[in-house]
């Protein structure tokens, strides 16, 4: 080790820089856990108090889960078919390109989808398919189109992570392609698929603008259940009009807290399932 004064000075400079770096990063990292604490504390605090209940939380939660559920049920098989087709047909380079395109399309604003479904698809469906042009069915269709690239990409990545040695081994032992797909590939990829579905449900449950634009304020679920509005839609309608501290304020914060818990819950389910299943 060089012990000259210049080297010692340089070393102390490096140590000072390191200390400053650590302190700056430590300070800038604090807001991240704080954000969660603030969100939870604020929503919990805002929900406290007595509110004259005019809104049925069960109906709103039911509507939210129904619309999100239908969207995922429609989008998931399509995404699975897309992932399987692209896995079979595309080489590594094209598959990577498709992943990039799907990632880009995942950022497509939901408000643009809502506009298209409210202005073009809804009126077309009411004339040609004979269903209500504005309602939860169309909202769920719009949501499922929004979810399609998200789920497709996740499924594609899930299949990509399945070790090819397993597939080749099964084929070498004489298993038919369908059996390899169902028994080996889906068997190995389903934790990731399940996680993607749970996160897709969370995303669909939180989408409010589409439901507001397409299902409107008097939504019915496929003509069967009346008043199936979603929590997000109710928040968008109520929040801009209210005064802080009023009973409606408390109700609004309760709804937001419930939606927060629902979405975090779906993510937790997705996170818990995956590590518990051995590869």
């Amino acid at each position, binding site marked *: 080790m060089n012990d000259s004064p210049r080297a010692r000075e340089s070393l102390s400079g*490096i140590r000072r820089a390191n200390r400053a*770096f*650590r302190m700056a*990063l*430590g300070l*800038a990292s604090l*807001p*991240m*856990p704080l954000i*969660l604490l603030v*969100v939870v504390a*604020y*929503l919990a605090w805002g929900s406290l108090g007595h509110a004259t209940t005019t809104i049925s939380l069960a109906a709103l939660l039911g509507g939210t889960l129904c619309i999100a559920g239908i969207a995922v049920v429609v989008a998931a098989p399509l995404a699975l078919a*897309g992932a399987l*087709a692209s896995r*079979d*047909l595309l080489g590594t380079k094209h598959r990577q390109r*498709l992943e*990039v*395109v*799907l*990632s880009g*399309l995942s*950022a*497509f*604003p*939901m*408000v*643009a*989808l809502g*506009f*298209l479904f409210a*202005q*073009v698809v809804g009126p*077309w469906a*009411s*004339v*040609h398919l004979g269903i209500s042009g504005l309602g939860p069915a169309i909202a769920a269709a719009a949501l499922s*189109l929004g979810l*399609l690239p998200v789920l*497709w990409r996740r499924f594609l990545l899930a299949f990509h992570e399945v070790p090819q040695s397993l597939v080749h081994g099964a084929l070498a032992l004489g298993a038919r392609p369908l059996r390899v797909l169902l028994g080996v590939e889906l068997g190995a990829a389903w934790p990731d698929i399940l996680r993607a579905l749970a*996160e897709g449900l*969370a*995303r669909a*449950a*939180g989408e*409010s*603008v589409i439901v507001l634009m397409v299902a409107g304020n008097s939504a019915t679920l496929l003509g069967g259940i009346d008043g199936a509005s979603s929590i*997000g839609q109710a*928040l*968008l309608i109520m*929040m*801009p009009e209210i005064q*802080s501290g009023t009973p409606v304020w408390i109700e609004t914060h309760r709804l937001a807290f419930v939606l*927060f818990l629902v*979405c*975090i819950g*779906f*993510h937790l389910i997705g*996170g818990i399932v995956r590590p518990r299943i051995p590869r």
Partner: protein
Amino acid sequence: MNARFAARTILFGLVTLCVMPLILLALISIRSANTRSVEVCRIRGMRPFFGVVLERDALDRRSGIVRILHGDGELGPSALAVALDDLLDHRSAPSAWVFEREDGPNLYGVPKSILGPGFVTLRSDSLAMRLGSVPGRLREDRAMLVGEVRRATSDPAMFALVGEQWRRWLARDDSTRLVLINADGSTTTTRLSGILLAQPSPSGGAFEWISIQASQLVRFVSTPPGPWGGGGALPALLSVLELALFAGLFASVFGLSTAFWIDSWGRASGWRSGVRSLASHLAGVPGVVWGVVGAGILIHGLGTEIDKMGFVPGRAVSWGAGGLLWSSLTLGAFATPIVLSLALEELDRLPLRWRDLYWSSGATHWQVFRRLVLPASWRGLAASVLSGMARSAGETAPLFLTGAVRSAGGILVGGTTRIPGLSGGFLHPGVLALEPPWLGRDAELGQPLVALMLLCLALFCVSLDLFASRLRHRIPSTEEVLP
């Protein structure tokens, strides 16, 4: 072979389905030029008039109604709803022009002459030239005079002098008018300085169609919305850019710092997996919940308190009514967990043996960060920030709750142009699209314009994410990173 064909069909169909929203938005946007083909309409019991027969939507076709934009300049419903049987005739009027005005709805007619001091123009080619330049010059003069009047308020003598000039200008402006011939041969006049756009009715050629589309696109992205449904969407598009930049800045400071801290000091402990899972869960919190939290804490809490303290006396700045700053902070908080989880993934891609090489030679955390982590993964980290920006730029729900408005807001620049300010309402394409009527009173003209705005927003978000993916997929080689 059959299975392969089926797989190809499925793949093609699904890719088309995913891209279809972009195509549909583009198709609706193109209709904004089509609505400007003026026709002479004859309706039972009415005099012939210039109008634009609107493309009937599915519901109207079923009920036998046709809607016509009535370009006679009178106030009232812009689109006449007429029974299909009562529409006797409608044929193209190639000599008619469309005039967008600042003080009334669109006007259709054949320009005849300009009346007023200094104007005797009868030849149509010179009239067309003057219609392209004179109204803009007159508005510039007006803006200059208004500025002089404002500056002279403290000096009574100067105020009287400038006031006299202003009155003379108003009298001259009121008498400088464009004369138009209507479809029934009668004439009508309109104030020349109030004409925002004078455009001949397209005759249908492909070159003309392309040039109209191009000029409308340029006008759309470079001018503010007009008060009567015309104009562009400059303030709304600027808001999107400002929001994405501020949110990206917020998310990059806090998201990337946390990622670096965990990468440098949190590797051995349970911090890493804990914060990763926390970020992943927070990334799933919907925008509307962030909007409620942002509106509650920033607008009803912090903003109201700032207003009570009166930091900016004498100025109409209200932080308690929302604005771009609060919206960007809310979007920044929304984007931070996304940036953090993507940045952690990027930092994980650096091979551990590279770090071990530096540690074994006695390097400090700062040196490892400066010499290895930053040069090797800056592209991926930039991609993480861009992805966060793309996700947050497409969110509308938080903006709806934290300050975005449907009518013109922002700071007035140059007399007519508004740019989004940090406080007060601001325009945003998503909020404008939420419900008709769009951009003034002409819903029929507004729909393609909103589609064009949403197309711009969608292209911005998608291309930001595509660019991020392009950055992310380049992994540096060992020779590039290690000394």
